[in-house]
């Protein structure tokens, strides 16, 4: 038998790599573009998420509401129904990351494809993860954000990869100045300045480690995540029923070398032919390109046929569902829902807390968009369900008055899209003065920094002459800040800019936030009467 590899499938393989590179590039371009670009409205930089049927389905179930933008997920569903898991192999940016590193690890001889692992049980993991996520969403607990590939990738990039890039960029810029080529240094500094890359995230180190860990799993098995863990891949696997292009092995040419199955990226088992798992195949064409005798082909066959799919034992299914049923209340054992947390300041436009948790997929889009780095992945602020959901940390950044970027980029509507005019009316919390730390109240000297930065007009921070007794017994009457809670929007710029840096003398808490009916300070009925649309204004 003449040994010759197929040029056609080698070409298809290269086209597939181009496609993966292009889609990853697009994903990364949209990620880098998710910042203030000079315009108030940013466009649909979050569009990748809307093609994800897993996010579409789970958030719809968990929140009992369909979000219109997810109509695009229908495209992915239709493609998969007809052609199989092309999207995993040709489009998914996380899949491309895994394939890239699998390739690197193979070249480095860290990953050695061994004789096919006959046990299929690990392939079933991802289906069980999918079922757990779906069942939990039935109980209105949205766990998809922890496992969805796009959420995982975006969150890892936004909170770990981009900050690392930013810091490497800064070090590089510093190096250019160190080498006494300041014109290059200036160019680099302006370039990185234009990208406005956020550099600081709480948990960024751990989120980065998690990402690194998942990448390193590829040393154990090629595309480990895609094979064993990905719930979105599992969903597409279930949808892949027709698979118009089907793998066929010409047994007259086949020398039974088993290379195709050995190098299959997702354990779809092209050989023996009748054991091909159409639900696992991502159409990477590695098998057809690697075959030494051109025996493996993908002819188009419209006829459905018996499909070899993953056998999920009923026992496991029931067990997983039962676990998910338990998991739902398990995630709720927390005082978080009992009363509003003072430091849980959500982005403007965030839905009321229970609704917010049902919709937020922890993707980190809002955190990437935030111009002041204020939005941070929560750890314990919002209970277990709320891990990695966005929380505004005034000590890191503040809410820019004329900015509604986070509301525009939220892919699920957990943060309601707002115009600038709508956004400036939203109150996300209230500011409080800690008189035992505030410079005028304690030292009797002037400061006014909080008042100066307060963005509302009239200002929510008023300056009042206050008698302060100093340590020598003398009395000073400096201007000291007092908050008008009707006007305060909780943006946090006062806390951020307070010169008492370690523990600011003015700070924001969530009370009074527009989105909550319970986290109130004063009922409207007992507020002094003001004319509608006329906030109290001492200047008038």
């Amino acid at each position: 038998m003449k040994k010759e590899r197929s040029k056609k499938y080698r070409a298809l393989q290269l086209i597939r790599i181009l496609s993966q590179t292009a889609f990853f590039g697009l994903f990364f371009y949209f990620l880098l573009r998710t910042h203030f670009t000079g315009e108030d409205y940013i466009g649909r930089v979050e569009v990748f998420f809307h093609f994800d049927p897993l996010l579409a389905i789970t958030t719809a179930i968990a929140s009992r509401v369909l979000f219109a933008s997810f109509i695009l997920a229908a495209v992915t569903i239709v493609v998969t129904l007809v052609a199989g898991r092309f999207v995993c192999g040709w489009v998914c940016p996380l899949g491309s990351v895994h394939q890239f590193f699998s390739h690197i690890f193979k070249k480095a001889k860290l990953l050695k494809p061994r004789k096919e692992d006959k046990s299929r049980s690990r392939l079933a993991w991802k289906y069980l993860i999918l079922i757990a996520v779906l069942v939990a969403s039935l109980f209105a607990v949205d766990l998809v954000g922890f496992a969805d590939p796009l959420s995982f990738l975006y969150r890892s990039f936004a909170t770990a990869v981009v900050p690392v890039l930013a810091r490497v960029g800064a070090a590089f810029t510093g190096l250019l100045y160190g080498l006494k080529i300041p014109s290059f240094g200036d160019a680099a500094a302006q370039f990185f300045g234009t990208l406005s890359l956020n550099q600081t995230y709480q948990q960024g180190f751990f989120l980065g480690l998690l990402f690194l860990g998942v990448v390193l799993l590829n040393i154990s098995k090629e595309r480990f995540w895609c094979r064993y863990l990905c719930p979105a891949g599992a969903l597409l696997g279930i949808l892949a029923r027709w698979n118009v292009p089907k793998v066929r092995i010409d047994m007259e040419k086949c020398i039974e070398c088993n290379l195709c199955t050995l190098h299959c990226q997702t354990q779809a088992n092209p050989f023996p032919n009748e054991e091909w798992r159409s639900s696992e195949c991502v159409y990477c064409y590695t098998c057809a390109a690697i075959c030494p005798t051109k025996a493996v082909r993908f002819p188009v066959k419209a006829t459905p046929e018996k499909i070899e799919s993953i056998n999920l034992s009923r026992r496991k299914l029931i067990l997983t569902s039962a676990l998910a049923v338990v998991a739902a209340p398990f995630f709720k054992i927390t005082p978080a829902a009992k009363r509003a947390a003072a430091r849980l300041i959500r982005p403007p436009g965030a839905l009321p807390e229970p609704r917010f948790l049902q919709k937020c997929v922890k993707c980190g889009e809002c955190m990437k968009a935030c111009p002041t780095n204020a939005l941070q992945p929560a750890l314990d602020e919002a209970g277990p369900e709320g891990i990695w959901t966005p929380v505004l940390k005034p000590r890191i950044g503040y809410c820019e008055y004329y900015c509604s970027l986070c509301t525009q980029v939220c892919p699920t509507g957990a943060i309601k899209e707002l115009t600038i005019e709508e956004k400036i009316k939203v109150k996300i919390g209230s500011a409080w003065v800690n008189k035992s730390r505030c410079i005028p109240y304690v030292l009797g000297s002037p400061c006014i920094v909080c008042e100066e930065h307060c963005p509302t007009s009239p200002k929510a921070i008023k300056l009042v002459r206050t008698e302060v007794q100093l340590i020598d017994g003398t009395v000073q009457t400096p201007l000291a800040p007092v908050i008008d809670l009707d006007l305060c929007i909780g943006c946090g710029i006062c806390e951020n800019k307070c010169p008492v840096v370690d523990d600011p003398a003015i700070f924001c808490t969530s009370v009074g936030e527009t989105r909550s009916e319970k986290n109130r300070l004063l009922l409207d009925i007992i507020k002094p009467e003001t004319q509608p649309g006329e906030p109290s204004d001492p200047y008038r």
Partner: protein
Amino acid sequence: MNRRDFMKDLALGGVVLRFGPSLLAQAGSQPDMAMVTGESPAAITTAALAVLGGMKRFIAKGDKVMIKPNIGWDRTPELAATTNPEVIKTLVELCLDAGAKEVTVMDNTTNQAQRCYARSGIAEAAKAGGAKVPFVNEYHLKKMALGGEWLKEWEVFTDFVEADKLINVPIAKHHSLSRLTMGMKNWLGAIGGARNQLHQKLDEAMVDLAAFFKPQLTVLDAYRVLTRNGPQGGRTSDAKLQKTVIASIDPVATDTAGAGFFDIRPEELVYLGIAARRGLGQTDLEKLNIEKRTV
């Protein structure tokens, strides 16, 4: 700038330093200050410079010029929190026409720099005029001896020190600590570090900074002035149209004259008193040659 020009400047500078601004005020027929009122920010700026004897009085051929507006806040020009973009654009053009080699417009903003540069309209206008409009670059920060009475040293953006000529273009605004913020307060945008800590002795800090930077020309934008809720405003009703620019060689006199747009007597501004005591400029406008015009 060639060596001969440098020697000339040095000699002239020596004379100016020796006899102080008061002598300069009386020297020659050129006015020390122009106050021009009119409908168009560009036209009144051009006219103000013409009154002072043209931009060539300040700019030599081949100069690198730094223009320092107030771009501190993420506000539109109508809200009068930032310098009028037309004024900046006109000054850029005048500098280039006068032979400047390069004109840079920049400020260390308070809100996100990209936002302030965009919404103030200054980045677009200055670029259209032919200027470079970079963001401040932390690598250009240098701790410098300011030689002030209170501020001995602080981190300064060297761009403002290294330029051949410096033009300060503040906007006249209400401020709850210094009462008004105009030219001298504008220098807080040329420095880095923990600027918010200067507020504990703001008047002294402003004077020390003004003494350090010494602009060749100050152009106070009072096309719109901010009368309350300073220094950001927020409603158009916080701003008041005055349709005026004041251009002067004397940075203290500019701020003194600017107080006239508000119900504030110059004597009430503590920093003007300190500045006058230190001989930085004139607070007695009677002693200056001021020309007022309407175009």
